[in-house]
């Protein structure tokens, strides 16, 4: 069984510190099972559409939740949103934008492109943990995605 096929959460984040902190927060909340991390936009698209290094991935197995940073190398978060929300295979995947910015332009653009949530990463780590727990609980446990 290929681990990538069992992914529950796809974390798209280029900053390794943030990846570590996010994973720690998820882990602390027992939500860290089957997390897959990609570090740039291009890799994220390869993952979604089973191309490049993910060519052997079963495209029908979609993650339960995508946590998306906006500032990404190569292809940024807004562009990824636009692509996956315009593709029938991926459009129903819940995407939570988790980013440093509180910029209104980002918020508006995200929702416009079909983001399901927009959450700012708090500087305070305690708050960050609470935030991650809440979003994980909601999207993974409470939310009932379409099958």
């Amino acid at each position, binding site marked *: 069984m290929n681990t990538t096929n069992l992914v529950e959460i796809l974390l798209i984040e280029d*900053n390794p*510190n*943030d990846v570590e*902190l996010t994973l*720690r927060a998820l882990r602390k909340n027992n939500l860290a099972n089957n997390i897959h991390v990609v570090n740039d936009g291009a890799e994220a698209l390869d993952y979604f559409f089973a191309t490049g290094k993910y060519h052997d991935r079963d495209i029908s197995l979609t993650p339960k939740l995508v946590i998306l940073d*906006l*500032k990404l190398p190569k292809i940024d978060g807004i562009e990824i949103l636009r692509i996956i929300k315009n593709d029938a295979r991926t459009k129903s995947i819940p995407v939570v934008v988790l*980013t*440093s*910015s*509180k*910029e*209104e*332009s980002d918020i508006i653009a995200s929702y416009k492109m079909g983001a399901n949530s927009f959450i700012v*990463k*708090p*500087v*305070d*780590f*305690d708050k*960050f943990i609470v935030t991650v727990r809440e979003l994980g609980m909601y999207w993974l446990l409470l939310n009932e995605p379409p099958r």
Partner: protein
Amino acid sequence: MTNYKIKYILLTLICGIAFSLSANPVYVVVNIPAADIAIIRTITVASEPDYPPFCIIDKSGKADGFSIDLIKAAAKAANLKIAIKIGIWNVIKQDLENGTIDVLPLVGRTPERELIYDFSLPYITLHGAVFVRRGTTDIKSVADLKSKSIIVMRGDNAEEYARRNNISANIVTTNTFEEAFRMLASGLHDAVITQRVMGIELLKASGIKSIKPLDLQLNEFRQDFCFAVRKGDIKLLAKLNEGLSIIIANKTFDDIHLKWFGPTLKEKLSPYDIIKIVLYTLIPLLILFFSAYTLLLRREVKRKTKSLQQEVLEHAMAATALKNQQLLLAEMEKGTKVGGWEYDVAKKEFTWTNGVYAIYGISPSEYNIKGKIKYGPARLYHPEDQKILDMAFQHALNEGKSYDLTLRLNSFDGKFKWVRTAGNSVLREGQVVRIIGNIIDITEQKETEADLRKLKDDLDKLVEERTRELNEKVRKLAKSQKAMLYMVEDLNAVSAELKLEHQKMEAANRELEAFSYSVSHDLRAPLRALAGFARILQEDYSKSLDNEGNRILEVIVDNAKKMGTLIDDLLSFSRLSRQEIKLSLIDMHGLAKSVFDELVTEADKEKIEFTLHELPEAMGDPAIVRQVWINLIGNAIKFTSTKPIRIIEVGFFPRENEIVYFVKDNGVGFDMAYRNKLFGVFQRLHNVKEFDGTGVGLAIVQRIILRLNGQVWAEGKVNKGAEFYFTLGK
């Protein structure tokens, strides 16, 4: 028969005299031009059937007789048409009276009849006679008739005569003479009174021989026979008279007379008769002729007189017209100060109209009395002008040249005048015989001209002055304009600069946006890592660290958090200037209350004496106005925290056209010396140890209020509290 002839001659004589006597008055009274009568319709004449030889009926039943021939001839001479009808005397007499006919040819003139008819010249005079049966002897005088029974024709002269003179007590009337004679012949009554000539003729015609006229003179029964017209028909009467005069004058009368009375006369002429004829016929005829001639002469004289009178009248009218024209001229000269003059070369004499005298200032009578030579108009003119006038006059006189001069003169009554005088020569056969001219007083005109000239000069001066002023103004204006142009240029330069600045500013804004975007992402990520990993260190390795180590870690985490807040504040502050404003009505009271409730902790709530007045509504962007209340009320809570009794009051007061809102507290206050720094970014009047804060809050308040076109200011005293006021622009 001879007897009869002599009587006839006598009759004629009497008739002629009577005619000549009566002709004059009749003629004078009636003088109607022939033309008028020409219009008259056919004249109807009515004749009797049985008054021989004057009016009878011929064998064909037409009217005939002396009177009929006479009226026919007279009518023809007078150019009248006539129609003759026949009727018995009493009827036709009536016909004339009521206008059915126009003329009766044979009417004896009596006083009674003059009331109802007008009569022509008498053309024959007849006497009445008394006719009796032969053998009657008891009638020798008129007086003898008194006891007799007398027959007369009704309406005849005889009846009138008999009744007028009361001849008899017993007068019988008949319709005709013939009836009267027949009655007498048959032995009825005693006598018939009628015209002698007619009676004899009638007896002869009707073959009655038993009746004879008496040789008795009836002095009162003498009759002038005339044509009769209706009373007042003067025109017709005149015409008939004229015709009668003409036929008498041209002998037609004689021919007719001869026809009816004459032939028997010549047959038995004796020398005695001849003398008688000469005496009794020719003389009356001559008289008759001369009468007619006189009539014609009179007519001619009258006509001439009339034409002369007409001529005199025309002359008089012409004279009057001339006089009127002179009056008009004089009148015109009076009004216009114009005169006309004439110089007669032969007589060497001037004639002036009143206008000339008026201009020279002297009356005609005065001038003539004092003498023309002594006071010749020559003395009046200005010496220079006199020379000019003399020369011009001489030229006119010698060469026939016209002149028209404007000259100065001093009139007799001592007035200075300007005159204009013109002279034109009248030539006859190449010689100047007269000079006629006019003179006009143009003093007023000259004065007016002078006034006008002065007015014009004044105006010119004024115009010049105004022009100068205007030019000065124009010059100044041009200068100003130039200055303005420079200013406009400057302005253009400035606006170009401004545009450039604006572009720069926009670029800067864009940069700022990119900068703040970068800050919000890139500055926070390391902070988060710092805080996050410090926390991980604390969590996972606190046991390995001593107390000092753990304290230092805590400091790191705190500072990281603080920096996060700082970045957030800074970003929201910078965002304010870029954010769009959405105006709506704000419930300020509700907003302030909710903000206070949100900010205050349960613990603080008990310690703070919070007074919120009823605030009026305001226009603004509710989101950013909320931020104002947050910052001001937040400050009040914060800066009263050190006080045992904390008082916060939120209220308002109206000022001019706006509402001033305020937040007052009894907190630490501030030194008014630093109030300028109060609203600056990162400016703090207290250190962080005393009061937490980034120094951005009031800067945000000010920026919001300024963006809403309001005002914000503060008053305070150290330890005595602070008061913050703001208004929201309209």
